[in-house]
């Protein structure tokens, strides 16, 4: 029997992703990903001063603000061929790293852990045993018997009160949840502890960026931070030392809690290394430049054209990215009948309601060389690993060893192309970033110590039309902003965000996007509680980058199952 399950948050506050799956005898036979709200960022930017684009770009979304600001200034700088001072590069990198660490931790604990961790099993847990499991994973001081007992007491209070609050909508007792009570207790304890360290990484962003969310220190040509080593009012030794101390705490949490937790979760759910693969092509853009010119990067970029064939390896992305990206609107609510390069891109809305065979989403279908590609930590780690990038190999090998030893069998790098692989590679990337954070702070301090206090190169705009692209390997993957400028005024602007790649609909040829293909073949135990679908979609860390957000006091339920 075929059923169609619609998970539709259209009535939700800030919910914009809708997933439809057709389930045939308990297995997903087809899938559609749609975004239910129009972003319209491009229209807002046309006609504005190119130097201000980043201020608007970072307002499009509440969680990914920083990344849009960064891609936007980089796009304008690319168009102007404007180099930025080394200090500005390092300050931007420290902000990007800490933004990403915050985002990755929020994803693992607050946004996806409860797909795997059954909080209602915690009352049955033995606190002492949870502590000894925790001690086996790392030297983290927050794994004490007292910590475990406190979390257990909290869970018992919540369960007994009947006021589940934030936990009211979990799929508790679902057959796909099978951690033992002590592991649930350990991970939920870290869920609560993580919030403190997320706040610390934001404090670092705020020290450099002025405020969070929505940093204030960017400018086309560099950053607006004044450097004076002896002053407490601007960026000097006192603030740099404050950043170093905060970073040490964040790094400790990432390396001794988040990373081991992700490895343990992977080891306890090894079957999810065989579910949710989907994509055959992967893209990452290089990031964390080590010089003002941006010629050397700490995060490698590249393109895997065929993962399945294996032989081809990773292709270079330099230059090709500029040429090979197009967006197709055959199944998206826009006018137009051919795939367009972002500089030539059009954004003319044409809403038609949801039609599986016609238009069904506000997301354009991003294509590279005419084909869909997955972006995100999975893409980045696969590309770095296959290129032999030392830092990627170090953390990936460690993660796979840990997960394999818990699972009791070998999990190889190729199995990362899966739902659990996306979770694990996000933690691998976070571990890499935490290690790089201190290096980039040191690069900044060393450069200042040489007597270089420059943070900004003034832009000047030519009278003719110019084009630029700014890329950033964001927490959700390759982000690119494309701009056409005429006499300093924006003539065209397109943002190809990570979810434009991953939540892409079918294209003219009917080829599915990464979310859609990842869901195919997934077993669904209970159509009323499609937890398996959510696990795979959540593994991408979906973001519709269109946070029109109002408070709706009525609140509504969502989701439906229809027999076909």
């Amino acid at each position, binding site marked *: 029997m075929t059923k169609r399950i619609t998970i539709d948050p259209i009535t*939700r506050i800030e919910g914009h992703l809708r997933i439809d799956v057709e389930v045939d005898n308990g297995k997903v036979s087809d899938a559609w990903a749609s975004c239910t709200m129009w972003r319209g960022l491009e*229209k*807002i930017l046309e006609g504005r001063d190119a130097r201000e684009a980043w201020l608007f770009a970072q307002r499009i979304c509440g969680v990914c603000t920083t990344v849009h600001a960064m891609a936007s200034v980089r796009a304008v700088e690319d168009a102007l061929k404007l180099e930025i001072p080394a200090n500005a590069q390092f300050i931007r990198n420290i902000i990007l790293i800490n933004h990403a660490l915050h985002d990755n931790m929020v994803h693992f604990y607050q946004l996806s852990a409860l797909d795997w961790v059954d909080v209602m099993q915690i009352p049955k847990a033995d606190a002492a045993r949870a502590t000894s499991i925790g001690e086996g994973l790392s030297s983290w001081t927050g794994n004490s018997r007292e910590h475990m007992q406190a979390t257990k007491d909290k869970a018992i209070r919540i369960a007994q009160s009947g006021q589940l*609050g934030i936990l009211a909508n979990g799929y508790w007792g679902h057959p796909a949840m099978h951690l033992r009570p002590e592991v649930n207790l350990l991970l939920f304890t870290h869920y609560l502890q993580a919030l403190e360290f997320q706040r610390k990484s934001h404090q670092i962003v705020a020290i450099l960026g002025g405020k*969070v*969310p929505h940093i204030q220190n960017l400018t086309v040509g560099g950053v607006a931070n004044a450097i004076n080593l002896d002053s407490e009012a601007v960026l000097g030794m006192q603030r740099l030392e404050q950043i170093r101390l905060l970073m040490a705490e964040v790094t400790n949490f990432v390396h001794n809690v988040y990373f081991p937790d992700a490895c343990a979760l992977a080891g306890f759910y090894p079957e999810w290394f065989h579910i949710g693969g989907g994509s055959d092509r992967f893209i990452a853009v290089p990031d964390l430049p080590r010089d003002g010119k941006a010629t050397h990067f700490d995060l490698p970029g590249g393109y895997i054209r065929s993962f399945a064939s294996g032989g081809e390896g990773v292709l270079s992305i330099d230059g090709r990215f500029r040429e090979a990206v197009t967006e197709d609107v055959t199944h998206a609510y826009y006018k137009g009948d051919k795939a367009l390069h972002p500089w030539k891109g059009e954004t003319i809305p044409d809403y038609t309601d949801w039609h599986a065979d016609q238009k069904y989403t506000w997301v354009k279908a991003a294509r590279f060389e005419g084909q869909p590609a997955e972006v995100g930590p999975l893409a980045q780690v696969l590309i770095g690993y296959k290129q032999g990038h030392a830092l990627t190999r170090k953390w990936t090998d460690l993660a796979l060893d840990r997960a394999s030893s818990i699972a009791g069998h070998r999990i190889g790098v190729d199995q990362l192309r899966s739902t659990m692989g996306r979770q694990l590679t996000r933690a691998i990337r976070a571990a890499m970033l935490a290690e790089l954070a201190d290096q980039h702070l040191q690069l900044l301090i060393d450069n200042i110590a040489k007597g270089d206090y420059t943070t900004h190169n003034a832009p000047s705009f030519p009278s003719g039309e110019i084009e630029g692209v700014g890329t950033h390997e964001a927490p959700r993957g390759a982000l690119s902003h494309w701009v056409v400028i005429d006499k*300093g005024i924006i003539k065209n602007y397109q943002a190809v965000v990570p979810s434009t790649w991953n939540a892409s609909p079918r294209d003219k040829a009917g080829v599915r996007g990464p979310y859609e293909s990842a869901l195919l073949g997934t077993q669904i135990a209970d159509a009323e509680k499609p937890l398996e679908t959510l696990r795979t979609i959540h593994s991408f860390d979906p973001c519709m980058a269109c946070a*029109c*957000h*109002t408070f709706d006091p009525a609140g509504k339920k969502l989701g439906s199952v229809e027999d076909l």
Partner: protein
Amino acid sequence: MSRILIGGIGNVLFADDGIGPFVARTLDARYRFPSDVEVADLGTPGLDLIDYFEGRERILLIDAVKSAEKPGSILLYHQAEIAQCCVGPRTGPHAPSLTETLLTVEMLGLSPQELVLVGVVGQSYETDCDLTGAVREAVDDAIDAVLSELDRWGVSYQAKPSGVEPGIWWTKPLGNFTAQVVQ
């Protein structure tokens, strides 16, 4: 960390959703508050709003609300009412709403003594950098609502000398370019 937070929430690119930031910035331009009061344009923080709860005794948020009341109406909500709103399954990480944020804060034991939401009923949430007429006219009402809550809390404030421009940068007209263009 200041004892009291006054935070404007909303997306300034979606018409009336920008009322929160608009009111926060206008308040900041018109009044001087004691040092233990922070006034902030929080944009669209989602779960990141939790960062702002640590150590706060009282929180006042300004946000657009959906309601059958006519656009521009001011509605007050208290923490318990917001927390009672239904929370559905998360389908995207950007789903966490104000309700989920408050419930998380409650679970963490970070709830302030009091939280009030000054809601302004919006008319349009289409992509647009300006408020609609009805909501723009409600700005002063919203400010009065904020100030009367502060009065109730015993917070003092003084009017700033007139002529301080609120930094509402997003409503600037198009085609404005002040830099020199070189040949």
